[in-house]
């Protein structure tokens, strides 16, 4: 994995984790904050509800007051105080007045407690109203359970007395606490009021209504209702109506008590958590979206940063590869003054240093080579010069001594002179030949044939007289494919190695030639069982004009290397003193441009 990818991954992971952590934290905090707000809202609602309830009570009291103060009621009171009075005239009065005053309950009751007219139960005229009969009625609005023809109902009541000549007439009015009452309450959206009419102990879902009628799944409120029934105090509970968390309510149960403290019913204020859940959901999804976008942005920014950070490094790497490939003059553009800039600067210094050192080395080597060449040339030329000098001196001497002897000497000397001059010529041609190295002319050839041919050519040297014989051996791999190469150059290079090997075994030995398949390459090994070379000798072996031989020019292996290099191959040596040497040539099977060369040559 590239550095840039690693860096990118690291950055991205870091950013995502950070974003997730923030999202989680924000979500949690907002959830808590919303819960708190919601609770405060519920509390405010309940408070508002209490106010509304009080207001309704005052409203009822006001209406009852208005009825009691009205002229018609006063007239009725006066009329009823007369003897005899006809209460029957007023039997429908309560219903009409109640309708006008929008009251659900209205009764006109004499001081004795007898109902004159009842709006809620018109047939009850003449019967006693316990409220007025038993004790003085309360001044404020109060809750009361009212008997109706079809059961009982809860009501918010108020009583006012209408002064009359003798005894007062009482106006008992009220509003029914039922679904209409609930519907008339001004409640914020998402809030609903429910009413539970208490019928002693226990819970019956039938007695639970809201503004729309009977509350479905009312039994879910049973624990809450029972808690209020048990404690008599306000209670609160979150009710889940279904598995959907949005379908839940924060229900506050307010006990409704009579003047005597009996629990008549419960008002349940339900605050829907739908909005809360929706908001939380929205925040969560927004957080997720933001996190996703953040991660994406993080990836983009990270990749940009990574690219920015790694570009000098990559340039460095590329430059290093360039340097490794030999392009020592590679320079990096220094764009920043930071560590990377310094590194680029150092790299540039390094490559400049390397180039300088190499140039110095090359110059030194060139000087060394020239020295070696001069030494070798001097050495090579000094060797034939000395016999020449001796011969010339012998000739001169013989001339002085005379005749017959002279002739003979002359003959011998001229022969020596010619031989040495030829020797000099040979030396010069060898140098000349090295300098005129031709370009390889590639064609398809069988390497094993080449090896056999070279060995056959040098059979004479191997079996030369006056010296211990050298055994030649071949280990050729028959299945080798043909390769594209210049057979002449390769033959000369191989011949050089064979001659070197023969030279390395003056006391005889075994010369082994091997071929083998080495992947994309073909391997040719020339091994001798000679004296071998030191490590240092091996390192300097391919330097031109370097030789270990007493009479070598030092150009042979340089030539070999040059040929092999021209074939894009490689030559190496394994050797140690006393154990012989093995030269290994690796040649690619196919050369670039083989075809063209083949075609042009063929």
């Amino acid at each position: 994995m590239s550095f840039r990818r690693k860096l990118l991954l690291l950055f991205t992971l870091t950013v995502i984790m950070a974003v997730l952590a923030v999202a989680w934290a924000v979500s949690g905090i907002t959830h808590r904050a919303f819960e708190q707000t919601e609770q405060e809202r519920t509390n405010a609602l309940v408070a508002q509800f209490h106010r509304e309830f009080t207001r309704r009570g005052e409203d009822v009291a006001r209406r009852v007051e208005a009825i009691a103060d009205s002229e018609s009621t006063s007239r009725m009171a006066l009329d009823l105080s007369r003897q005899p009075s006809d209460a029957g005239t007023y039997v429908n009065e309560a219903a009409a007045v109640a309708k006008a005053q929008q009251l659900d309950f209205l009764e006109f009751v004499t001081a004795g407690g007898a109902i004159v007219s009842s709006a809620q139960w018109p047939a009850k005229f003449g019967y006693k109203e316990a409220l007025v009969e038993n004790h003085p009625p309360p001044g404020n609005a109060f809750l009361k359970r009212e008997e109706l023809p079809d059961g009982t109902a809860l009501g918010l009541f108020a009583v006012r007395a209408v002064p009359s000549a003798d005894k007062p007439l009482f106006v008992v009015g009220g509003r029914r606490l039922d679904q209409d009452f609930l519907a008339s309450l001004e409640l914020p959206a998402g809030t609903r009021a429910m009413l539970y009419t208490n019928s002693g102990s226990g819970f019956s879902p039938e007695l639970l209504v809201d503004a729309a009628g009977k509350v479905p799944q009312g039994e879910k409120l049973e624990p809450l209702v029972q808690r209020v029934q048990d404690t008599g105090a306000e209670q609160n509970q979150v009710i889940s109506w279904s598995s959907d968390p949005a379908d839940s309510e924060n229900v506050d149960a307010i006990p409704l008590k009579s003047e005597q403290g009996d629990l008549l019913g419960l008002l349940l204020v339900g605050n829907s958590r739908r909005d809360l859940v929706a908001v939380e959901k929205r925040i969560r999804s927004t957080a997720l979206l933001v996190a996703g976008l953040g991660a994406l942005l993080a990836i983009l920014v990270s990749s940009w940063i990574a690219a920015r950070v790694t570009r000098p490094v990559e340039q460095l790497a590329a430059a290093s590869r360039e340097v490794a490939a030999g392009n020592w003059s590679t320079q990096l553009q220094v764009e920043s003054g930071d560590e990377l800039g310094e590194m680029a600067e150092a790299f540039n210094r390094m490559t400049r240093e390397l180039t300088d050192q190499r140039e110095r080395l090359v110059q030194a080597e060139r000087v060394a080579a020239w020295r070696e060449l001069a030494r070798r040339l001097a050495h090579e030329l000094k060797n034939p010069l000395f016999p020449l000098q001796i011969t010339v001196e012998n000739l001169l001497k013989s001339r002085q001594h005379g005749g017959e002897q002279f002739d003979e000497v002359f003959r011998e000397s001229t022969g020596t002179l010619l031989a040495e001059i030829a020797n000099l010529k040979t030396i010069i041609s060898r140098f000349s030949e090295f300098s005129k190295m031709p370009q390889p002319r590639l064609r398809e050839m069988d390497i094993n044939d080449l090896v056999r041919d070279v060995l056959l050519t040098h059979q004479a040297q191997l079996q030369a007289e006056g010296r211990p014989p050298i055994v030649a051996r071949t280990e050729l791999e028959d299945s080798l494919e043909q390769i594209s190469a210049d057979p002449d150059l390769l033959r000369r290079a191989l011949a050089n190695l064979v001659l070197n090997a023969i030279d390395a075994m003056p006391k005889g030995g075994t010369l082994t030639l091997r071929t083998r398949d080495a992947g994309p390459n073909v391997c040719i090994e020339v091994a001798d069982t000679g004296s071998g070379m030191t490590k240092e000798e091996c390192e300097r072996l391919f330097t031109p004009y370097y030789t270990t031989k007493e009479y070598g020019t030092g150009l042979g292996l340089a030539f070999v290397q040059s040929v092999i290099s021209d074939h894009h191959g490689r030559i190496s040596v394994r050797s140690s003193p006393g154990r012989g040497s093995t030269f290994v040539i690796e040649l690619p099977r196919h050369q670039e441009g083989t075809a063209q060369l083949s075609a042009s040559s063929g």
Partner: protein
Amino acid sequence: MKRTTWPSLVIGSVLALLTATAGAVRPHYGGTVRVMVREAPASVEPATLAAWQNDHISTLIFEGLTGFDSRSHLQPKLATRWQSDSQYRHWQFWLRSGVTFQDGSPLTPDALAAALRSANSQWQVSVAADSVIIETDNPTPNMPAVLALPENAISNHTGGKLSGTGPFQVAAWQPGKRLVLSAFEGYWGGRPFADSLEITMGQAWRQQLIALELGRADVVEVAPQQVRRATLDGKRIFTSAPNQLVAVVFARDPQSEEERHVRQSLSAIIDRAAIRNVLLQGQGEVAQTVLPNWMSGYAFLFTTPTSSPQPTVPLSAPTLTLSYDPSDPTMQLIAQRVALNGRDAGVNLQPLAAPASTDARLVTITLPSPNPQTALAAVARAAGLAPQQFQGSSPEELYAQEQQLLQSGRIIPLIHVPQAVAIAPNLNSWQEGLFGNWDLADVWLGGAKP
């Protein structure tokens, strides 16, 4: 028992106008009298109209052999005289001559006999010259009164057209909604003053009074409980003698002595005076009997004091259901009051608006005839009992039959309620009879045009 005020009221207000002329001004011919009624019959056949509780219409179109006049005296109508054998089984009625149906065909004994046969399958009706003979298996001393019943009105179906001999003929008929009657020029009793009657049906009491107030109706029915208020408002109100019985009718005979006791206790505990004075605003009379005193003359014999509200029935008594007509708010109130009173006596009564099968029903039975025998038989029929068979017309027999009906435990009479009508100021010669019948043939509109 204190003598109630209706006779003087009726005689003072109603009978004052019992004449073809209304006071000082002679009647005008012409115009359309607009009438509103509560009920909405589906057809104008005499049999359908007879089943109607407050049938004011049928006598306008159809007539019987006899009829009751505004003072509840039996009068000849299509028959001019009649006679019976001493057993009251064989009755002969002589026809009025020169009477024609509204379609122009003459009233013949055959047509009359055919109409009577179709109305009374158990009668043997034969024709003799200018009379019809009716023979019955049982003595029918009140046959002339029976023949005055709307269901025995004579109608003629010729060519699919229904016609009677009454003063008005059907001009337009939308079943249950509107009936337009036009004056029958050839009516034997004289063409009605009004050219036509426009009767709108199915109108609630309140709507009717409003329509009268707005001048959209000339004759409207008035609920008993509205009479006082309407009179105070200066409306022209005419009240009949109390001829409707509000009663609790039980679906079956008492099955045990205890049940009989429950019903007796209920009857004793009901505060009828409160219902009359308050719910009916003083209209009508408290009723311990089926027949009002003005019909029987002996109702005072049944007067028992209302018992004080002390539970007299064990509280274990089962709840009885009591149905009432939900379209009449007063009936609902009376049912609730009866239930309230019953509770005081330990009788659990549950008023129900639905006309489903209940233990008891609170009903208004309109007495169909001023003839006491005929009325008693009709009440017995309404209570689901076999109508009484009278051997003669003695008051003692009537008394005994009524006593028997009351002792059956099937009916608790509550109130006798009158029928009331309010008429427009420009309507003259209104003569509502003692029995609440409307003679719209005699009314005339006090416009300037003849």
